[in-house]
């Protein structure tokens, strides 16, 4: 590799490298504890909401650096309604659908002001942040409400046993007991990923869209290795946490939306140049509306995950979630001006944040200092990103 290639490599994968560095750092500081299976499992269980909300937030940020400040409150609000419904004995699926529908309605309401009336997103969602925090309080009557529906808790990642049942049974490899279902699902996922990726490369080579694919093969190999390692760790513990299914579904669906659909394309185009997009025959207001209605829907889902995780709802839940989601996007390389950013970036950003949170807890850093470290990491991450992109000017 030439020096310029090395430079480009660092530029392209700054945040992945940062992730590895942070992981190694905490690996040393915690004497390896951070990467034991249980902690990897906890990383998913405790940060599921960041992945889900970060995905929604990314679409808003893509439209031009607009953020949604209300998601924390909306998570609390939908969770509060869900908790009340479950307490009243409503069927769990009806309750979940209600939560997501209410989230969508809230998102559409805010989307209306932003897209049709041209209220700045920052202000419209700041208003929403107050309104839905207050309404959460109203719904809960100011009290904590417990959720006791066991099936719900299990499906959405709360309580003690929120893992996919091991249908296959324990498999022993090299003296280790492994969760069979988890192993098999992991293997199938890797094979599907590798197979589909290679098929696509072959098609592209044949159609002369790309000339060589060495880099792509390396990338596919690394991702496959990461999934295998991850599967192994989960299998060593209790298997696949149910939260992971929801997170995986959301990430997969939105990676598809942003990559392969016309609406996804318009999100990027509007953020890159709204006027040019409008003159290309795209109804740009619809694009804004979509982004904000959508994050409401995802906030509804996050609301369900949240009351499951805490086995109940409280009027104070969800505070600061919007900031975690925003930080995940920016750490993951989304542009603060819109137009660039990827779902894979959100994954990296959210993982990095989760890793730091957990690492700090494991090394017994005072809770007073934990936000300080998070803030500095966010600043450093974005600084590296800005600097690495600027140097050629």
């Amino acid at each position: 590799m030439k020096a310029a290639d090395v430079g480009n490599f660092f530029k392209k994968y700054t945040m992945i490298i940062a992730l590895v560095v942070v992981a190694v750092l905490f690996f040393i500081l915690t004497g390896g504890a951070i990467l034991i299976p249980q902690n990897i499992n906890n990383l998913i269980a405790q940060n599921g909401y960041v992945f889900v909300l970060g995905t929604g937030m990314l679409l808003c940020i893509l439209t031009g650096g607009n953020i949604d400040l209300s998601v924390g409150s909306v998570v609390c609000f939908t969770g509060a309604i869900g908790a009340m419904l479950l307490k009243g004995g409503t069927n769990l699926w009806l309750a979940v659908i209600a939560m997501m529908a209410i989230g969508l309605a809230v998102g559409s309401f805010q989307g209306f002001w932003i897209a049709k009336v041209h209220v700045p997103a920052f202000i419209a969602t700041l208003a929403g942040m107050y309104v839905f925090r207050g309404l959460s309080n109203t719904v809960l009557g100011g009290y904590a409400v417990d959720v006791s529906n066991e099936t719900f808790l299990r499906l959405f990642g709360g309580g003690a046993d929120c893992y996919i049942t091991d249908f296959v049974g324990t498999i022993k490899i090299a003296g280790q007991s492994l969760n069979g279902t988890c192993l098999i699902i992991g293997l199938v996922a890797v094979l599907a990923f590798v197979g589909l990726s290679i098929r696509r490369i072959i098609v592209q080579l044949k159609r002369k869209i790309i000339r060589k694919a060495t880099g792509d093969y390396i990338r596919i190999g690394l991702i496959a290795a990461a999934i295998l390692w991850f599967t192994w760790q989960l299998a060593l513990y209790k298997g696949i946490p149910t939260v992971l299914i929801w997170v995986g579904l959301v990430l997969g669906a939105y990676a598809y939306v942003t990559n392969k659909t016309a609406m996804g394309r318009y999100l990027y185009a509007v953020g890159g140049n709204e006027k040019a997009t409008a003159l290309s025959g795209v109804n740009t207001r619809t694009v804004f509306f979509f982004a904000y209605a959508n994050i409401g829907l995802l906030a509804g889902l996050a609301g369900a995950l949240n009351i499951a995780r805490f086995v109940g709802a409280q009027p104070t839940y969800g505070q600061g979630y919007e900031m975690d989601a925003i930080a995940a996007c920016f750490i993951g390389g989304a542009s603060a001006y819109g137009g660039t950013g990827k779902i894979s970036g959100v994954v990296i950003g959210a993982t990095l944040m989760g890793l730091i949170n957990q690492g700090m807890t494991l090394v017994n850093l005072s809770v007073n200092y934990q936000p300080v470290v998070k803030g500095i990491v966010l600043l450093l991450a974005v600084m590296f990103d800005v600097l690495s992109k600027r140097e050629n000017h």
Partner: protein
Amino acid sequence: MAEYLLEMQGITKTFPGVKALDNVNLQVEQGEIHALVGENGAGKSTLMNVLSGIYPYGSYEGDILYEGQVCKFANIKDSERKGIVIIHQELALVPEMTIGENMYLGNERGHKMAINWTETYAEADKYLRMVKLSESSKVPVNTIGTGKQQLVEIAKALAKHARLLILDEPTSSLNEEDSRALLDLMLEFKKQGMTMIIISHKLNEVAYVADKITVIRDGKTIETLDNRGAEPISEARIIRGMVGREMTNRFPKRENVAIGSVRLEVENWTVHHPIYPERKVVDDVNLYVREGEVVGIYGLMGAGRTELAMSIFGQSYGTHFSGKLKIDGKVVRQRRSEADAIRHRIAYVTEDRKGNGLVLSQDIMVNTTLANLGAVSKFSILDKDREHEAAMEYQRKLNIKTPSVEQLVGNLSGGNQQKVLLAKWMFAEPDILILDEPTRGIDVGAKYEIYCIINDLAAAGKCVIMISSELPEVLGMSDRIYIMNSGRMIDEMKAEDATQESIMTAIVNAGRGD
């Protein structure tokens, strides 16, 4: 030997991977107007950035001698202290602030913590009179026109006690009248002993105003021509130096193009200003275009050409529309929608490619297909391979110089960006193309290629409306020419009957009629 105010000796400036300047020499005499010409990317702006300290001493090789002394500028402030002031192509004024505030921005009168506004405005007014502006310096900049804003920039430079004034494309956004006024002002400054460097693409202006012309090509000085003789240097002579060959024919011939029946008709078209609805921006305009025909629309800045074009394209500009729009004889139902216009196979290629045309943060592929995603998708699901192939096809067709179609459009040169913009609208498969200033700010070679593309479009039976501020271009490319002034069509000429003089006379006469 003449006395040089400025000598740049053996300037070499390297960026990673590129030698932007290669042993460039420039000698400017006290009290002359020195023109710097060259194609886009030839290195003119880089050279001026070296001179003004934007690229500090040490980041380049060679010497800058100013008044015989070697200068080591670390930043713009250093060079400005010596009286070297550069006026950039893009106006650097804050629209909401007053003229006076703008002129002394970063150079405040009085104390930093207690600005002396009386002195500021008195001084500002003084310099405004020097550039022949009668406005008060207390009016906000956004209330005066672009031509006057350019003059404010010059007044601002004078306020910094400029002794060497560098004007980078000063007339690129001015109409002919304002341009001429600006050039005459330069000549008057020269009489008062000011030294100036002008960078311009407009060779007629260069020939008119410059004493000496230095030609730069591919980062090297090619020659310095003396323009003080009785006869001004011909444009062809300058172009020869710029492109390294004689451009005998600046406009490619359009051969064997059969002009067919009328496809687009606009009747009694009137459009009002979106913010001041009582103002008519387009006033009772009639025009038609035939199959395979290239129709030029000429007019001065502010004549309403862009407004006309955008109002035809899905009413994307203006309010209170009246009149009829017919395609193939059928009246098109009017509503505000760019998508509707595209469905009717109209394309509007904007004059402002960065502001209204391209998504600079995305790659060539995304930009190429943006106006017609339907062609590469099914049920809103994109077929990225097909999209990639389509983008590559247009890249080849239009000769867009790029390593791959995954290159970000923001990284391309102006000429290549313009080609991507054209590719985008050709991909939308229109029958009627409205090209608004299709060659603005691009170099001679790229211009020729764009002209060839226009000819190909006409040969394919498309209707082309070409709006341009450059008379030679309108004359060289059109079959028929409409002349617009103050929102009205004042004349229509066949290309073979039209001359620069007849067009300008029509505009001057119309202006008198008001």
